[in-house]
């Protein structure tokens, strides 16, 4: 079959008869297209080009910048790992690095817990559930910058509506320093990130929940399992692969978060809410020290690589089991 379609020897095949001949080009083109290796390369070329231009090139460029003394308007020279050493000894970088872990850890935990809770609720049957499910995605759909601006207004040091509400209801007697205190500022950022990312968890977990056969729950109920036992023994093991994928995505996005912090706190007060990405931006783009900025941003790479590798490995083991 393959031979007759290929028609490489020039024998008359159905395919060759069907196609119009155009001189000597036709057999060459046919031979070319029928070479699996070449055809695969041809079909992959657009994707590879896109990946090369938009991912590989910037990545390689970033690595080169991090190893050079490049600053704005100055091409720079190779300086080895000097920028990495400088960043490692930089107290603001150390703060930003710790903040990034803290922010990612708590935001992911909260998104997972609340997202799971929401997914379980939405998995029930109730009136108007489609509208509720759709509207739940709103925080995820609204552009981050826009929603974060709204939150910034709510946390405004002078005109915070939250402070006003808490004051009017008698919960506080003085304003809470939402964005003007480092700890408060960080928790404000975690709150906004959770608010924004939770729907992604909820919807994905909901999709996972809906693949679990109700029969399993019924069987567990008949065996006398209570709600918690059904969740822990039936739902959770079946939902674990989906959960891990969502968590991996979330860690990647949260660890490299930029927009939210940039708009909400700008890294302040006094660098106390800087993340690696925002600090890299301040050094590389705002201050123009591109080499140092690139080195700072590359500190994210090994951390994310290890996290992703470990989780995917665990996932494979789960799938194998």
């Amino acid at each position, binding site marked *: 079959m393959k031979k007759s379609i290929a028609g490489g020897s020039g024998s008359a095949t159905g395919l060759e008869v069907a196609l119009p001949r155009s001189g000597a080009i036709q057999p060459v083109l046919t031979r070319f297209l029928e070479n699996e290796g070449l055809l695969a390369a041809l079909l992959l070329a657009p994707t590879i080009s896109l990946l090369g231009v938009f991912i590989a090139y910037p990545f390689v460029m970033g690595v080169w910048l991090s190893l050079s003394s490049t600053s704005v308007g100055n091409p720079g020279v190779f300086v080895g790992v000097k920028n990495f050493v400088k960043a490692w000894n930089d107290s603001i970088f150390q703060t930003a690095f710790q903040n990034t872990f803290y922010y990612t850890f708590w935001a992911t935990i909260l998104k997972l817990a609340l997202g799971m809770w929401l997914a379980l609720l939405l998995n029930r049957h109730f009136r108007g559930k489609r509208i509720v499910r759709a509207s739940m995605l709103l925080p995820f759909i609204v552009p981050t910058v826009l929603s974060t601006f709204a939150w910034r207004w709510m946390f405004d040091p002078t005109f915070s509506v939250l402070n006003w509400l808490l004051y009017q209801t008698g919960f506080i007697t003085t304003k809470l320093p939402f964005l003007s205190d480092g700890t408060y500022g960080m928790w404000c950022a975690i709150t906004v990130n959770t608010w924004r990312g939770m729907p992604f968890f909820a919807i994905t977990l909901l999709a996972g929940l809906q693949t679990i056969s109700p029969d399993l729950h019924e069987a567990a109920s008949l065996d006398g399992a209570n709600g918690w036992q059904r969740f822990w023994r039936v739902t959770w093991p079946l939902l674990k692969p989906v959960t891990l994928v969502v968590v991996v995505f979330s860690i990647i996005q949260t660890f490299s978060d930029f927009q939210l912090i940039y708009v909400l706190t700008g890294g302040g007060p006094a660098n106390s809410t800087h993340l690696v990405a925002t600090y890299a931006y301040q050094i590389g783009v705002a201050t*123009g020290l591109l080499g140092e900025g690139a080195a700072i941003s590359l500190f994210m790479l090994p951390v994310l690589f290890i996290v992703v590798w470990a989780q995917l490995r665990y996932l494979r083991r789960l799938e194998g089991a």
Partner: protein
Amino acid sequence: MKTPERNEAARKTSVVTRRTFLKGSATAGVAAAAGLEGMLQARRAPAHAQGTRLNILRWVDFIPACDVELKRQAGDASKALGAEVVFEFINANDLQPRITAAMQASTGPDIIMMLHNWPHLYQNGIVDVTDLADWQGKDQGGYYGQSEAAAKVGRQWMALPHGIVGLQMAYRKSWFNEVGATSWPKTLEELRQVGIKLKKKGKPIGQTLGHTFGDAPAWSYPLMWNFGGAETNRDGKAALDTKETVESVKFMQAFWKDACDEGGLAWDDTNNNRAFLSGEIACTLNGASIYIAAKRGQDKIKDDKGEPMVRDIDHGPIPSGPAGSVAYHVAFSHAVMKYGKNQKLAKDFLKWLHGKEQFGKWFQVADGFSVGSTKFWEQSPLWTTIDPPMKIYRQAAASSRMFGYAGPPSAKATEVYSKYIIVDMYAKAVQGMKAEDAVKWAAGELQKIYG
């Protein structure tokens, strides 16, 4: 209605032919020297300018009418230069990222507004405009030291000084009177004492210590200087860790706790304007935009008695510390970008825009918010008719220091500014870090930069 003289002048200019224009240009020297005058005389754009577009990137002005005036002037400039002149206005805090992006990509606006001493940092990507700066200096009475420190790198002018925004302390006269301050405090300690009483009445002083381009450094640097602290010594080496700097930080800690709205740690340059105009704070360091906004919106912006708030606003300088009273006023300039394909046109445009006629119109609209980069503008008739609280801005630019003091202006000073190290030194201290430790931290960061 045109006068006969004007008609005659118009007739004379309208009959200037291309030949006359070329002749005129040749007589005056090369086209570079006389290009703009030639164009204006000929009422015709040079061939190179026709069909081209000149993009200018500036901040969103705190006086919106200034941007409106520039847009209006863009229309006139387009006719005069034969090129489409387009202004783009963005948040001042986003200017530096835009400059970096444009320089690295070698594409973007032809002219970019520079704040502070940024021309030092971006000197490799901008065009030497010494010829224009020399012309402007001679034409307009000589530069303020602040303009020169901001835009002159070594012997070359890397940007053309445009204006200086003076920063003074706006305050509510009646509220100060209520706590016994019938005149503006002469020393920082007096200001703190007044602030203590004001804060007890729920009307604190408001000051940003956030990562924002203007008000935060304009408060932090003078505070350091007025106690005798400095970033560097005269040789440009780091010299921050001194008893004087520690004293300034200790003052700030007390001032912050006793007299200020502690939310200021998260403020940008606009928050204090809003807080002041809504009656939340009694005093703040700012450009004249608060006063001008209160004046232009006096139908809406009222004080607690329902009177226009503008009548209750006055300005005072940053009070003296143990080492005197020095301020920081923000210098603005325009840089022609090296990657630009229309550098000649850009320079022609800047000569047009910075000339007495055009700048004078813009200066009038700014109403004292932005003063000239040269001393000529101190003599403007504007100052004779301006409201008394605004007169303090007239010569303010003369009493300013530049970042990096006591060393020479440099890109390193811009780096320190861009990293907000001096601002953060105070911000860390008011959040609880010991004054000595905050200074040590900042001194360590400066050591890495200045050596």
